[in-house]
């Protein structure tokens, strides 16, 4: 673990100094997307990995984060940072409302129920005029500053914000893993009946994990809205996005602290680069490549790529 910590610090130092040398805006955008997806996938990993409850609806939290911030900013000129906080509160609310009935379901029933919830949210936001319906919301252009959470001359400030968010997510995930909560979640995953018989309140701990997951996804929603300055239902509440979050965790290693980070560094470049280099001629190629990767990993290496780096380090 000592060695692991060293590698981690080195890796973060590299990430912290990269923008000083990086002049290419596309690469900068790529790294921002990687870190954003890593953050969300870490969030997914807490409920899907540690607690073993496969959620295919996490994009709903991303959407709630993005939309809450946008609506508050556009209609009431509320500062985006406060909007982020409000988004987190609403996301946790949604997690509790959805989690309470859904966590009684097991296995496939739960997975399909989360798909249903995610899709229902998508339908609501596509038809809700107050939030711009299918057209979406354009963020007002504000003076660039950290308080306004908007930067127009360079992507670098966004880069550092999302880097800090990712570090925050890793810290949260580490805290969960090492705490009593982490042990409870793993017990719930491995043997729910056994955990219950030991007096663990399964519902409660699943709910806590789901709420943490919701917060980590929701802050990314706010970030995305402020970064792209335009949100609409299919860019924020898509089922495919929820699936990507799970796939990233799977590629890196489900239930491993750094699994989602590794997964994001493999998956996002794979997707973006095939898209850029193959263009419209290669439409679908990115899906073929990563789906084969997903199938192969699920069959032969369910512990993910992270296991390649950490032999014997459970």
């Amino acid at each position, binding site marked *: 673990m000592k060695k692991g910590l060293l590698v981690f610090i080195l890796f973060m130092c590299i990430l912290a100094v990269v923008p000083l040398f990086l002049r290419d805006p596309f690469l900068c955008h790529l790294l921002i997307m990687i870190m954003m997806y890593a953050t969300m996938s870490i969030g997914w990993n807490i409920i899907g990995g540690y607690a*073993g409850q*496969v959620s295919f609806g996490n994009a709903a939290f991303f959407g709630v984060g993005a939309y809450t911030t946008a609506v508050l900013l556009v209609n009431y000129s509320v500062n985006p940072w406060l909007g982020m906080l409000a988004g987190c509160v609403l996301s946790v609310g949604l997690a509790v409302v959805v989690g309470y*009935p859904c966590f*009684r*379901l097991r*296995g*496939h*029933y739960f*997975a*399909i*129920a989360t*798909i*249903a*919830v995610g*899709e*229902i949210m998508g*339908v*609501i936001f*596509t*038809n809700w005029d107050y939030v711009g319906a299918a057209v979406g919301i354009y963020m007002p252009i504000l003076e660039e500053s950290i308080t306004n959470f908007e930067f127009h001359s360079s992507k670098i400030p966004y880069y550092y914000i999302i880097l800090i968010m990712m570090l925050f997510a890793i810290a949260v995930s580490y805290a969960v893993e090492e705490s009593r909560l982490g042990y409870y979640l793993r017990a719930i995953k491995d043997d729910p009946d056994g955990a219950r018989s030991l007096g663990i309140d399964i519902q409660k701990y699943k709910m806590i994990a789901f709420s943490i997951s919701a917060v980590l996804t929701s802050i990314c929603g706010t970030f995305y809205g402020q970064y792209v300055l335009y949100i609409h239902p299919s860019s924020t509440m898509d*089922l495919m996005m929820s*699936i990507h979050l*799970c*796939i990233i965790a*799977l590629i890196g290693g*489900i239930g491993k602290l750094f699994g989602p980070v590794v997964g994001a560094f493999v998956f996002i470049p794979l997707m973006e680069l095939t898209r850029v280099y193959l263009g419209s001629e*290669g*439409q*679908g*190629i*990115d*899906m*073929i490549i*990563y*789906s*084969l990767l*997903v*199938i192969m*990993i*699920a*069959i032969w290496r*369910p512990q993910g790529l992270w296991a390649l780096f950490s032999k014997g380090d459970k």
Partner: protein
Amino acid sequence: MEGVFTQTLVSGILIGFIYALIAVGLTMIFGMMDIVNFAHGEYLMVAMYFAYWFFVLFGMDPLYSLPWVTVLLFLLGVITYYVFIRPIINAPMLSQIFVTFGILILLRGVAQYLWKADYRMIPQTLTSGNVSIFGVYVGVSQLVAAAGAIICNGLIFWFLKSTKMGMAMEAVAEDKEAAKLMGINSDRMFALAWGVGIATVGVAGSLLSSFYYVFPEVGSNFCLMAFVVVALGGFGSVPGAFIAGIIVGLVEVLSGYLIAPSLKFMFVLLLYLGVVFIRPQGFMGRK
């Protein structure tokens, strides 16, 4: 006004038969091996493309190409079993979910690469046009599709209940170990379940292609509908799926008619949530 309402009811029932047919394959595979095929809708998409290309390349009407599409899909199902499913039959649920999700993305990617995201439709078929039955206008294609779905569902039911092979499949679904002691090769039964389960989607896809657009994402909505049908009817129950299909079809068109067409999908999904919260085993499911 009343005429429109009856019209809506009839169209809901007709599409419900198709949902039932799509769901039967899903429920069969789930009932036998506890694996949910998340790629089910994508096989439907493949079947629809096959029917489309049979028409474009050989001028074959979807009704004539139906047997060919069905056979092709049967083979595709068996191949899927041996290549992708057999290695994970005893794996944790997580791996199983990811493999079938992987197949979903794979098939969609292949369709997008080969045929692009365009919407395609067979312009003129044998069953184009409308007929009036007791004052209700129905598309002939829809009517034929519903009839085909009923026949196919009946055949599956008969196959499971009355043929030796079908009963062997039921036995494996009931108790793998006991079936093995009776000399049933469960591996071959699983392959058969995938073959037959996917072949039913082949039938559904052929029937649908005569009045529905084909595009790479066409499967996703049908697949979610099939999940709702399966949950409603009970995982593993063929007659349950049949009744549930009609209910889902009715809920879909009625909520579209009475509330708003753009929200109808939401009501079907709410139906799913309502069912699994209140009665997780569905109407006719085991346990």
